[in-house]
């Protein structure tokens, strides 16, 4: 069995994954997506792989490469549809609503004027986020009408076309932290709380991570959220709302975990590697059966 790991940067997580694959005896080849030329009509050397785990930092590169690889018939982790859902906050919101997973209320508008109406429907404060973005970038809290008008006008005037989706979320008065659950193969394996004095609690913005107990409610919600997106592997972020209880805020399809292993005592990289290997093995068996069936068909036909 062979697995490729596509990447743009070999960060600590990618090194951990390569080490984990090596530790469990799986042949995993790192492939720098920036140096790769794809021929959508010919999979060439990609035919050697039974699965590809995507670890590209660039969402654009991820979507394009996984689209081509799935076109070859290669099983990708995560699948394209899951990446498309997790990487777009509006798509995530819709998937969670359709799966009856509790999530913060959202309004979507197409310009600053209707954006202001959206904010006022939700009430102040409200939060505006880019639908595609990570690490807390360009997330802004609008505490009053003055702030809302200023942010919405700046977004409309200075933002790219993709920034002109006005995705506005109710502000959840969380207790100085959010919760992240790591889900691998449909199973929650670890939970952390990300705490910060700032209202944005991304570790990329300075929040600190601490392992917490995986309660039944956290398990249930994270399983249902991951299932709603079709992700094999996901980090599910939840907010503790004083009035509504736990709400699923978003999912990450290519999670970072370097700061979560020591505090949870769970070797997340090894869980991911083992699950990727299981998927590759299943896919390899399916491909072998298909090839055998094709040979039998050809033998009967001739």
């Amino acid at each position: 069995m062979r697995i490729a790991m596509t990447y743009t940067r070999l960060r600590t997580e990618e090194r951990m994954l390569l080490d984990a694959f090596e530790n469990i005896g799986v042949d995993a080849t790192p492939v720098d997506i920036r140096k790769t030329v794809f021929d959508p009509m010919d999979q060439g050397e990609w035919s050697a792989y039974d699965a590809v785990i995507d670890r590209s930092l660039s969402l654009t590169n991820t979507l394009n490469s996984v689209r081509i690889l799935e076109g070859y018939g290669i099983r990708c982790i995560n699948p394209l549809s899951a990446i498309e859902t997790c990487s777009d906050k509006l798509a995530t919101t819709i998937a969670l609503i359709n799966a009856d997973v509790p999530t913060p209320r959202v309004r979507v508008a197409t310009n600053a004027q209707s954006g202001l109406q959206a904010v006022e429907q939700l009430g102040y404060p409200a939060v505006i986020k880019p639908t595609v973005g990570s690490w807390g970038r360009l997330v802004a809290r609008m505490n009053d009408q003055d702030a809302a008008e200023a942010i919405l006008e700046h977004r409309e005037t200075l933002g790219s076309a993709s920034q002109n989706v006005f995705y506005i979320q109710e502000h959840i008065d969380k207790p100085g932290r959010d919760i992240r659950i790591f889900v691998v193969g449909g199973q929650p394996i670890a939970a952390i709380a990300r705490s910060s004095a700032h209202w944005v609690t991304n570790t990329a913005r300075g929040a600190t991570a601490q392992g917490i107990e995986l309660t039944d409610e956290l398990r249930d919600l994270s399983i249902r959220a991951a299932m709603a997106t079709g992700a094999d592997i996901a980090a599910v972020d939840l907010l503790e709302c004083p009035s509504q209880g736990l709400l699923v805020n978003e999912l990450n399809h290519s999670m970072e975990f370097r700061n979560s292993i020591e505090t949870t005592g769970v070797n997340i990289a090894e869980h991911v590697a083992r699950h990727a290997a299981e998927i590759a093995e299943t896919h390899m068996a399916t491909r072998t059966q298909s090839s055998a069936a094709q040979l039998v068909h050809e033998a009967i036909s001739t």
Partner: protein
Amino acid sequence: MTQATMTAACPECDAPVELTRHPLNGQIANCTQCSAELEVTNTAPITFELAPEVEEDWGE
């Protein structure tokens, strides 16, 4: 592997930057002298270039 093959010059300040394990292309390192974020672009011999700046679509 010898110490000499695990060290290369920082392209920003020319200080020696040491890798603590066998290098792979795309690996990230930090220069302890000038704090530049570096990327391994060649492993034999080790070559560093300044790592690309974070782009709008990067993330998890």
